[in-house]
């Protein structure tokens, strides 16, 4: 662990930094929250002694006890339902769903209860529950372990839906999610869990970029490529490749899917005149449709080409041996860039 002053340019005091994986950054974020707010609880299957199947909660039960890092019975609806009750009592439960494909048993609690209790009570009840979901594919897994259900949550009012793409964002965003008075669906790009980067270990409560802001992660001039979670990486690789061909891509990391930070995307597209959206979820009714519709509404005269969408097909997520034919690849992104440039 090293200590640098003002590494990220956001803090003027000396903050320790550490080179950690995205998964580990979440661990450290959870640990900071647990240490500083006694109302924070972790709940889920196998998160205790095992530390979770991805080891994201590794060591936390030993440190904070089985009452705060709770191995629950095997029932996702039960996890969410009891988390809601705990939140009503003043706790801040952070629920781990083991894999994306296993969130659906909890869908009713999330959609009809978690998302709506604040409104139902006219603001008298808040349910600051965080639902951590490792999502997305590319890890060679069996069925139900590679899903991208983000739009199913983002369509539902009352939920915030966010996804960090880097260790640094993972560290701060998990803390912001926990601190948020609203329920947050926190989508962890499991395919990027092992990406490493230097992270400034700011103290709990340090203001970050917020849960409602996209970010231009690479400036460019020809085409705006919008991604989030795992596809930010793909977009950046595509940008590097395009560079070699003399095409300049501006990459926007959405960071948050509800709300969508249209302003940042629109500003970028105003500059480039072209837009490609990339996600792993199926294109049909995906987040890309909303981005495309909105960008077209706001940049009708600036757009030189229709917004191009790159994503999964309208198929079940395929077996591992062909998942890379399904997933949006650098090549598919570049193909979409070419399509946009061809207009």
């Amino acid at each position, binding site marked *: 662990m090293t200590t640098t002053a003002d590494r990220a340019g956001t803090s003027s005091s000396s903050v320790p930094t550490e080179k950690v994986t995205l998964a580990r950054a979440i661990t450290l974020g959870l640990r900071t929250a647990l240490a500083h707010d006694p109302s924070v609880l972790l709940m889920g299957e196998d998160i205790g002694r095992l530390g979770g199947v991805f080891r994201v909660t590794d060591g936390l039960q030993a440190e904070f006890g089985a009452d705060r890092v709770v191995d629950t019975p095997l029932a996702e609806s039960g996890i969410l*339902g009891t988390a809601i009750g*705990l939140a*009503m009592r003043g706790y801040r439960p952070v629920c781990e769903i083991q894999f994306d494909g296993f969130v659906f048993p909890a869908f009713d609690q999330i959609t009809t209860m978690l998302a709506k209790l604040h*409104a139902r*009570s006219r603001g*008298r009840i808040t349910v600051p529950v965080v639902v951590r979901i490792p999502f997305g594919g590319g890890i060679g897994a069996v069925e139900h372990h590679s899903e991208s259900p983000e739009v199913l949550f983002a369509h539902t009012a*009352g939920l*915030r839906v966010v996804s960090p793409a880097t260790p640094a964002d993972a560290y701060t965003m998990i803390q912001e999610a926990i601190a948020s008075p609203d329920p947050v669906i926190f989508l962890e790009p499991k395919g990027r869990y092992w990406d490493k980067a230097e992270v400034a270990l700011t103290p709990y409560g340090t203001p970050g970029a917020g849960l*409602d802001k996209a970010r231009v992660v690479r400036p460019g001039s020809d085409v705006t490529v919008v991604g989030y979670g795992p596809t930010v990486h793909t977009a950046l690789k595509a940008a590097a490749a395009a560079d070699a061909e003399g095409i300049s891509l501006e990459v926007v990391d959405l960071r948050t899917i509800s709300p969508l930070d249209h302003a940042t995307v629109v500003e970028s597209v105003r500059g480039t005149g072209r837009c490609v959206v990339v996600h792993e979820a199926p294109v049909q009714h995906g987040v890309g449709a909303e981005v495309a519709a909105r960008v077209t509404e706001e940049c009708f005269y600036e757009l030189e080409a229709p917004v191009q969408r790159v994503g999964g097909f309208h198929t079940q997520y395929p077996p591992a041996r062909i998942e890379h034919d399904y997933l949006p690849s650098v090549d598919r992104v570049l193909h979409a860039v070419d399509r946009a440039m061809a207009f």
Partner: protein
Amino acid sequence: METVQLLTPEGTRVADARYDHRVAHLDADALRGFYADMVLTRRFDTEATALQRQGELGLFTPSMGQEAAQVGSAHALAPQDWAFPAYREHGVLHVRGVDLVDVLKQFRGVEHGGWDPAEHHVHLFTLVVGAHPLHAVGYAMGMQRDGVVGTGDPQRDAGVIAYLGDGATSQGDVSEALVFAGASDAPVVFFVQNNQWAISVPVGTQSKVPLAQRGQGFGIPTVRVDGNDVLASYAVTAEAMERAHRGHGPTFIEAVTYRMGAHTTSDDPLRYREDDEVAAWRAKDPIDRLRRYLESAGELPQDFLADLEARSEALARHVRDGVHAMTAPEPTSMFDHVYASPHSLVQSERAWFEQYESGLAEGGAR
């Protein structure tokens, strides 16, 4: 499976070695209080049903027939306890002090909630059948963590009661609530009002064995009680809440009762149930039962009844006036509590809507 009963339908007190001491302290005054609460709950029911017929409410869920189960169990709660009702527990709300006018806000379509849960420790109605017992269990798990369970201090020890119906017991969420309660020893009481029907479906379609058995398979002690007997309902709930308070874990109660009216004012029970069934249960009316008992004990003086009559009419008037006074909320209120912190989409949609309403809207997504 034995059914706990302390008052027969004829109003005769029967001895019960296990539960007698739970009601020993209830003097005539207390019982008249129970009686009044049941009568008032029913008066509310009649008034709300009438208001629905007059077009003042979109819908109403009558509790008629279930007053003893509700009033008896609610009286067994301590102030620091919490109740999680389904959507028919007007008697519970009344006993806890919730202004029943507030219950009608959702039926008049002016709000989805209606009251402040924190004020009387009564959660809002949950219309998704079976979804709320998990919230009750989670809430109880919170009490455990707050250190207000098993302290031995009766002013402090707290627990939760979750009300649900016979139909609700079939929902997976209810079973999961039993799993979580059993696993965590949470201070929670599951109070099932088996009113024999889930809309048009008889309880036999949900279970061929008494519902009270359900708890056992989850390691939760169970009891079956005559839910039309306010004393027995009080007694078994008092015992169960005491277990909860002491940190001895959950209890599952089946209160056998009957929904004397329609499922809701939109329902037509003539399509699915027989007159004699209704008549047979009318003979076991929970209010009549306590009246007979108090009468035979000479404990229902005329002035009390006259006063109760006046209170009933005052309640009805209060409800009527309250409902009439409920006006539609501001349209923009729909944007008010979608989130607890600012959300750019809600903000922009609200702004658009306000402009649109004032005839000024231009672009925007709708």
